[in-house]
Every structure is written in C-alpha cells, then in structure tokens.
C-alpha cells in the first residue's frame, strides 16, 4: 500500500518559493535536509543528505517541492 511514490535517486530538490507558504510541514518531516530561510520559506540546507524518499513532496500541501524531476 505504501509503494505509490517510488523513491527517486536523483538529489535534485526543487522548491518553488512563490508557492511555499512556510507551514513547516516539510522541515518538520525532514529535519536533516530542509530548513526555513530568514524569510520563512523552505530551503534545502543539506541536499547531500537527501535519500530521495519524497516524504516532503507528498506532504507539502502547496505542491512547492519536487524531488528528482525536471519540471517545466
């Protein structure tokens, strides 16, 4: 049941700041990689630690994070 979002290996973490509302969900779920910047938006503070699990992507209510895909 938990396999619908397969992990992606690519560590390409994209955060769309104009959609991020700074809710703190992603930073709470992934304290190692993500953090809030001074303006209250999520940033990838330690991208090298990303395992590609996509927990942030599936739980960001604002579609502001995507992992390992080039979106146009």
């Amino acid at each position: 049941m938990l396999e619908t979002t397969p992990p992606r290996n690519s560590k390409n973490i994209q955060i769309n700041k104009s959609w991020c509302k700074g809710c703190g969900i992603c930073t709470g779920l992934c304290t190692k990689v993500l953090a809030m910047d001074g303006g209250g938006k999520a940033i990838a503070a330690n991208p090298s630690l990303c395992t590609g699990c996509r927990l942030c992507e599936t739980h960001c209510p604002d579609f502001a994070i995507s992992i390992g895909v080039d979106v146009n």
Partner: protein
Amino acid sequence: MQNKVNKYLRSEMLPHIWCPGCGNGIVLGALTRAFGLLDCDQDNTVVVSGIGCSSRASGYLDFSTLHTTHGRALAFATGIKLARPELKVFVIMGDGDSTGIGGNHFIHAARRNIDLTAIIFNNSIYGMTGGQSSPLSPLNSKATTAPQGTLERPFDLPELARAAGATYVARGTTYHANMLTQLIKNGADHKGFSVVEAITACPISYGRRNKMGNGYDMLLWQKEHGIPVERARKLEPSEMEGKFAIGELHKSDAPEFTDIYERFIDEKQINHREAKKA
C-alpha cells in the same frame, strides 16, 4: 521556475487559497497521484464538488469540473453519471457538506450504489465559515457553535456509508498520503458507490481552537491515532479508544444503479418496438 508540477493540476491557478499547513493540498496531491495510477483520461473524467474550503479542490483540477452548491454535489454527480454512464465521476466534499446539509444525498447515493467515487475531506469542522461544529466533529471538541465543546456524538462516516449501502468504504489520512492515493485508486476501480474518507487538518478553524498545534503537529496526531485496519481488528475496544482504523474497511458486490437503469431503458425500448410491430 516550476509551474507545471502535475498534468492533472491547473497550475496556473496556484498557489491555492488554502491556509498555510492546511491538509486539503495534501489530499489534492494524493488525488492527483491516484489519477496518475488510474491513467485518467481528462476528457472522460468529471470532478464534482460542493461548497467549502475542500470543495475548492475541483477548481485546481484539469478535468471537466463542477463546483456546485452546498451539500448537493452528489445530486449533480448522479445526474451526470446517469446521463453519461461511460464517464468516470469523482465527487469532492467536506465533512459538513457531505454529512450535514448533504447527509440525505449521501445516504441515498449509497443506497442506490451508483458508480461514483466520493472523497470526503474530513477536517472535523466547517472550515470555510470559520469553525462551526459539523456532524463529524469529535465529541467535546470546541467550535464557534460549541465554545465549551460539542455535546453531540459524531457519525462514524465509514459505518454510516456501509450501513446505507456503499460497496467500497475506506479511510485514510494526510499523514498516510501514499495509502490515501492507493485507497482512492481502489475506490475508483470499484464499480459501485465508493467512499473514501480522508482525515485532514484544518489548523486554522479547528486546530487552533482545540489546541492541536500547527499543520505539522496535526499530521503527527494522525500518525499516532490512525491504526491500520488489519491491526485495529486485533485490538480490544479499550485499546482503540480515541483511535480510528485506516485502510480498506468494507468491500462488497451489489447491483450498480446506472446498470439497472440502462437495462430498464433497454427493456422499455424493446417492448415499445415490439408493440409498434404488432
């Protein structure tokens, strides 16, 4: 710059109107991934919603969408499905929309077992209008209409759906977002009235008044209180106190309404032609 995250979203409508940390966007994400698993054809899929914060979801989805009236989404959807049974029809409703003003439409859609997939965004409150209690607000929870806690017992939505005749009933949460995707997909694959309750956080109109913290805290609450049904069935009622089962809760087979209706029309037409010949 990322502006097209998902082919099923009207990305030009984003950012959406929901508050920071509101779970509605997580349910919407799960829904779009279910559309992906189903490989939904955008021209033959319809999304109908009622009125409320959650019902705004239809506006962000790139299908034929209907944003209807409060409580009446299932009535519109029933009309669409009967007129065009080949279309796949999803119905998005809030807990107030589906079990308060629309409660009667809900039980009768279930009774008919019409092939619709209903997704109920259950945030335990009337979010859009500022936090009145709904028929799914937990006992003793605070609302503008129940400042000292509601005295009324809530419905158990899956129990209500099953008793009224729904043939697929499931419950997920936004914390268990991948499971939610799978439940919506399975509900859509099932022929008959499918109900998927999505437990979601309204940190603004519910969480704040009930001291449940922010959107992240409310996600963790779902993690702690949602018990996979396989495990829940083995637990004593006392161990499930305050908790709720998640997963596929009920599945059965029963005649589906558009099939019954089509057969009826076919028979009438045959009888009519034969009567004319004679």
